[in-house]
């Protein structure tokens, strides 16, 4: 059995080395593919805070992914058409600057997560799963029927947004940016897990009654976790939209929420690098199996079924011999 720390370092180094090799070998598509994996990993790391530590099985995290995407889409749309964005009587201008877009994406998704969390956390268990799923659908249908920003067709952004000092149109530079953000998010996640808040949250998942007895409020702990989780997934959504230079209601789709959970499960629930490994494997499967057969989802389904029934710790569990967190 390999120590988990070693697995983590290998994954981190591999994720950095692979695109660098692609630069040398002049294969820009591979870099885009890895960037996609990195962005999905950020989204899944976000979800893992709610799911793996907080035990909140949210089948609606696409809401935050989509909100991040639309935050980018709407701001860039107004910037590229030189129109103003009228909001609550204020006339704002759009922007093509990534840091501002990220800030908006994070704030908007955190706000949405707070409201959805406030409502959903009145319930637990199966109710929570179904309600988050329903909120996801609500945003999905809203995005489809709201014609101002493309409705069902989505919104195309012609030029990727800029970051001070970088040329984001060069694949490796945009990858570097996403990779740095993944590093920051992972670092925050690791700090959070060992901080008093993370420990309390972990306990609130396992024995809420005891947490309450020592004077903490489990629901409030979970709400904060849900908000942090939503904010990170929102950031990933903004990056994902920038990668494709396109947003559409599919970013809100419930399949995406399901896939985000799938990423975590493949890698290992509650493990720091679980979502990262899961995202890499998912993108690799999508690419390789998708090239072999049009019906690659069948194989994904079978793999998923095998992991759920026989290998609860996911890939990290298989490598390190540890079980995943019980959710």
């Amino acid at each position, binding site marked *: 059995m390999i120590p988990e720390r070693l697995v983590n370092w290998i994954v981190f180094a591999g994720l950095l080395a692979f695109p660098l090799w692609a630069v040398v070998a002049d294969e820009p598509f591979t870099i885009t593919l890895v960037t996609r994996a990195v962005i999905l990993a950020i989204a899944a790391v976000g979800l893992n805070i709610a*799911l793996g530590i907080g035990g909140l*099985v949210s*089948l609606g995290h696409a809401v935050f992914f989509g909100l991040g995407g639309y935050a980018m889409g709407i701001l860039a749309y107004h910037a590229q058409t030189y129109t103003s964005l009228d909001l609550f009587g204020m006339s704002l201008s759009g922007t093509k600057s990534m840091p501002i877009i990220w800030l908006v994406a994070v704030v908007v998704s955190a706000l949405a997560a707070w409201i959805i969390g406030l*409502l959903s956390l*009145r*319930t*637990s*268990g*199966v*109710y929570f*799963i*179904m*309600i988050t*799923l*329903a*909120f996801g*659908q*609500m945003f999905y*249908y*809203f995005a*489809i*029927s*709201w*014609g*101002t920003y493309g409705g069902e067709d989505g919104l195309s952004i012609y030029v990727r947004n800029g970051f001070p000092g970088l040329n984001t149109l060069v694949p490796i530079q945009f990858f570097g940016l996403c990779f740095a953000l993944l590093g920051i998010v992972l670092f925050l996640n690791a700090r959070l897990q060992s901080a008093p808040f993370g420990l309390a949250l972990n306990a609130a998942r396992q024995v809420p009654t005891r947490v309450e007895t020592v004077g903490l409020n489990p629901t409030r702990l979970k709400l904060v976790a849900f908000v942090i989780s939503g904010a990170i997934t929102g950031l990933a959504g903004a990056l994902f939209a920038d990668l494709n230079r396109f947003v559409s209601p599919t970013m809100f789709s*419930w*399949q995406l929420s*399901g896939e985000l*959970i*799938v990423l975590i*499960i493949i890698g290992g*629930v509650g493990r720091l690098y679980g979502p990262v490994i899961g995202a890499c494997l998912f993108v690799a499967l999508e690419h390789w199996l998708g090239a072999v057969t049009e*019906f*690659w*989802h*069948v194989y*994904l*389904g*079978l793999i*998923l*079924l095998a992991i*759920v*029934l026989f290998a*609860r710790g996911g890939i990290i569990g298989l490598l390190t011999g540890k079980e995943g967190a*019980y*959710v």
Partner: protein
Amino acid sequence: MSTLLIIEQVLNGLQFGVMLFLMAAGLTLIFGVMGLINLAHGSLYMIGAFAAAAVAGATGSFVLALAAALAVAAIAGALIEITVIRRLYGKAHLDQVLATFALILIFSEGTRWLFGSFPLFLDIPDYLSGPVTLPGGIQYPLYRLTLIAVGLLVGLGLWVLIERTRIGIQIRAGENDREMIAALGVDIRLLYTLVFAIGAALAGLAGALVGAIQSVQVGMGEPVLILAFVVIVIGGIGSIKGAFIGALLVGLTDTLGGIFLPQFFKLFMEPGAATQTGSALASMAIYILMSLVLIWRPTGLFGARA
């Protein structure tokens, strides 16, 4: 706005509601008895519709098509219960969600592989097509009226099955105390397979019936599945009565909201903006309804447990 239009839309809402009830009844029964959240219920709806379309295409008989939908969905349900679902009872909800999500992937892509990506069509038989005149001079499609009747009849049948038969007693006992009923000599594994097959058959029937007014295609099950979730969250998970009331509420809210909200906003907004605001809000109406119910009663209208 004429009274005729309102009555017609109420009937449309009822029709939508009773079809949702067929889906929601199976889901809530399966959750109530086995404690299982089944995302693949929408796949069984799809399987029913495809079985009906295939049989109707081969034989031309609508009755045979419905029988095929019931049988194929029930068999598919029993098969997945025995091979996969059985291992998930008593496991974490996350495992159930993932395993049944995996089943959706397998069923959807498998169906696409078998039937291709193009939608199939299931025709309404001649003896059920065309409008009928209701008291008051309302013209309403006979087929939709039949759907309402079938839905209500199935609901009644389900009530009789659960409240008045021996199997119903066993199902209710299984909800309350599975160890005790097993100790009394009831084969609990068989009972679970049976309940799952009944739920699957109801979903298959709904798929076939609705398939005749919409197209039969891969992915048709999931939107309905999510609406059925909304229904049972509103009604209270595990309660058939709650599923019935919830289904009618959702059906009516969705249908009437889509028609009347844009009209309502036209009263004080310019027409273009009113249509957009109204239709956007209408698409969210049932979820707003769900949120309101949850604020008022976190376990749904008739739910006992969380």
